[in-house]
């Protein structure tokens, strides 16, 4: 197993004591496509980011076990973490408008990621950046490499982001709501691109989203989180056989084009889900 | 449990389910006070500021001597039990003069803030909200005033009328409103385009009602921070004017002027110019600390 998590908890200090955002999460991730689904505040993002130890400074992180390919992330020093970040696991954020450095060209940002982990000249890095832009199916890679983020559309920006994270050939890609800032037509393109690249390179994918049907479309396995806990884990193909009422509720409350409904089923939250 | 009325004041203020407008408003104020009072920097600033105002209010009680009484036989005396901070070049009690000086300084600060603050807020909000020509004209005028360094414009202005407490206040007020107007305009511009202001416009409310009731109160936060920090700048400018002989004129116990008249004794009787100088420092520091603390409370992202 690439990633092993046992009893992970993440808490934040508040004036009235610790507030637990993630509680007792255990998870194994291998070379597969795993989706983590949950509504806002369910702790899905924090769980994924803890793998790279990229949490806010005030976060209190505890776990019985948190390893990446056998490396103990809780106790690793900053240097070891830097060998994991980027080099072995990449992270794609939600909105390229904010996630790309506005004063560096797309090419520079990709080249920088490559040079941080591979040895090579500036010129080589730039060539590599253009290659990568080509791989993420940008039509005029040389021009885009010279462009600043504000000159790119949302979809192009997200392709640049993907190219940047693929640059050092990582074994795992974490995509944190990679398409929720994009239009539906672009959204599908980006997700197909990610799926294609991940399969071709034999990488592991962790896809985080609030959109359960979307995630199950692109992943092998789905983990459903609610209020900081995992409430259900199942094969994506078995989604229709989900047992937990929360998972069922998430599926049912969506309006669907194919079937008209006079009113949508409303989720009744059971306090027992928190137990 | 929810039906029972909370017994303590604290409970009444901190309840999550206030039952009247008054309770909600006081609850908000109380929460802000809790945040403020847990901030040591802010509290130090507040304590110093309150002390300063107490000194000004109770100067006649606190002073040990008549601040104008000369004693030429006892010039430039060292600090003693009779004269806590020593005496100046005319044998006047420095401690008493410093106490009375707080009245002059705080009086000027308040006069400047009370004139420049509302003017700046009104101009900035209107320029920002209406945009177009009104904005262009008003901002061009503030630009002209901002094109002079503050002290220089104040100096030229004081030279045009004559030095004194009124002209000092007028000169500083003239230089104090443009940055306030700029800030209020910038705030208004961001507030103006929010959905809640759009929603207010959709109620059919007129522009003045929106500015007065919805825009200005939101500008007030950053304005309070700015004005508090500005108060220290006002103190320093007033003192600099006094020091250059263009501000409040002797024998009035203005701190800057006191430093100026005593500066030639710096090498021999260093305490004579230093003590009023320290008074200026403490007063300016008080408002800086207070402003810094208020910023933490009102605008946490600005830290």
């Amino acid at each position, binding site marked *: 197993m690439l990633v092993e998590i046992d009893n992970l908890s993440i808490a934040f200090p508040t004036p009235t004591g610790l507030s637990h955002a993630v509680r007792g999460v255990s998870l194994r991730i291998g070379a597969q496509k795993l989706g983590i689904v949950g509504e806002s505040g369910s702790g899905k993002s924090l769980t994924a980011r803890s793998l790279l130890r990229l949490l806010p400074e005030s976060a209190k992180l505890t776990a019985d076990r948190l390893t990446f390919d056998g490396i103990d992330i809780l106790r690793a020093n900053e240097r070891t973490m830097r060998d994991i970040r980027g080099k072995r696991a990449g992270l794609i954020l939600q909105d390229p408008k904010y996630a790309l450095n506005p004063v560096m060209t797309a090419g520079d940002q990709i080249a920088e990621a490559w040079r941080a982990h591979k040895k090579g000249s500036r010129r080589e890095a730039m060539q590599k950046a253009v290659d990568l832009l080509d791989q993420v199916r940008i039509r005029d890679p040389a021009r885009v490499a010279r462009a600043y983020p504000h000159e790119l559309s949302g979809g192009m920006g997200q392709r640049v982001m993907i190219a940047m994270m693929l640059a050092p050939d990582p074994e795992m890609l974490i995509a944190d709501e990679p398409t929720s800032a994009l239009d539906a037509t672009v959204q599908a393109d980006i997700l197909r691109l990610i799926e294609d690249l991940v399969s071709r390179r034999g990488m592991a994918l962790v896809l985080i989203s609030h959109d359960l049907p979307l995630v199950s*479309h692109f992943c092998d396995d789905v983990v459903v989180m609610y209020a900081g806990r995992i409430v259900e884990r199942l094969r994506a193909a078995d989604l229709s056989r989900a047992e937990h009422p929360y998972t069922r509720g998430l599926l049912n409350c969506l*309006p669907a084009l194919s079937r008209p409904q006079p009113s*949508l089923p409303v989720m009744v939250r059971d306090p027992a889900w928190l137990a | 449990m929810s039906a029972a009325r909370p017994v303590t004041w604290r409970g009444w203020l901190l309840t999550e389910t206030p039952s009247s407008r008054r309770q909600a408003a006081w609850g908000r104020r109380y929460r802000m006070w809790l945040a403020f009072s847990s901030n040591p920097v802010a509290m130090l600033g507040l304590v110093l500021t309150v002390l300063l105002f107490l000194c000004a209010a109770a100067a006649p009680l606190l002073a040990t001597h008549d601040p104008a009484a000369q004693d030429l036989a006892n010039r430039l005396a060292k600090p003693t039990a009779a004269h806590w901070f020593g005496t100046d070049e005319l044998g006047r009690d420095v401690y008493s003069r410093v106490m009375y000086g707080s009245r002059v300084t705080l009086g000027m600060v308040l006069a400047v803030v009370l004139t420049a603050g509302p003017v700046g807020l009104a101009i900035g909000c209107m320029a920002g909200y209406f945009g177009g020509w009104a904005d262009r004209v008003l901002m061009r005028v503030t630009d002209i005033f901002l094109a002079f360094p503050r002290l220089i414009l104040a100096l030229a202005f004081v030279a045009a009328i004559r030095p004194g407490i009124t002209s000092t206040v007028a000169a500083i007020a003239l230089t104090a409103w443009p940055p306030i107007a700029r800030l209020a305009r910038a705030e208004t511009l961001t507030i103006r385009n929010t*959905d*809640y202001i759009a*929603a*207010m416009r959709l109620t*059919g409310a007129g522009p003045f009602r929106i500015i007065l009731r919805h825009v200005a109160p939101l500008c007030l936060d950053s304005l309070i921070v700015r004005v508090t920090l500005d108060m220290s700048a006002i103190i320093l400018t007033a003192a600099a004017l006094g020091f250059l002989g263009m501000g409040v004129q002797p024998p009035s116990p203005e701190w800057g002027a006191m430093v100026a008249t005593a500066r030639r004794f710096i090498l021999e009787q260093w305490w004579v110019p230093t003590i009023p100088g320290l008074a200026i420092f403490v007063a300016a520091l008080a408002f800086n600390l207070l402003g810094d603390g208020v910023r933490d409370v009102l605008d946490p992202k600005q830290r």
Partner: protein
Amino acid sequence: MIDVENLSVRFRDIEAVKSVSFRVPHGGSLGIVGESGSGKSTILRALAGLNADWTGRMAVDGVPLVPRRDRAFFRRVQMVFQDPYGSLHPRQTVDQALSEPLAVHGIPDGEARVRRALDEVALPGTIRFRYPHQLSGGQRQRVAIARALMTEPEVLLLDEPTSALDVSVQAEILNLLADLQRRRDLTSIMVSHNLAVVAHLCPTIAVMQLGEIVEMLSTDDLRAGRTTHPHTTALRALSVELQES
């Protein structure tokens, strides 16, 4: 009830809406769907009087609209915004937000009306004196809807009212809107990027692309796949493929 003819809106060099025409009958409900930048929200803002730089002809209930609206207009037409975190004044309690329209229009009996409004959007009375930051996203959107209903308008404009909400909350708000529409006999226009959401509430749908309405069709036709414009077909295919697999 709502007539729009050849409406165009410009932002400096860009024509955001290009000669758009449609009408919504009394008690009807039109959905406008499109991707970001298609001009769908711009139409709503021009209709609501928030943007005065338009050309063409718009009328509500036969009364032509001019760029500057009078107070009576705002009694009849109201709007709900996308982001519930941005559409409530951060320094005003729920009570103040709901009382403000009453004060502007001089409507008496505020106390009872506020309480009734909270009731209507299924909010508990205990939240009446809370500030927006003390509410959840769904509660905020309910307050925004209640505020829009305070003056008892006939027309309700909905600008992506659920896209900032979690799906479970979205269902609650959609049910509430459907319910209100039925009970109050409202005429409404709803803008969204989500085809399924619009189809749920509106019997007629206009599809926008690059400032133009490329297709206008009934929801039944859409559900059955009887689309004519390729953009509509593509949007429908994506919605079915990604959301209902």
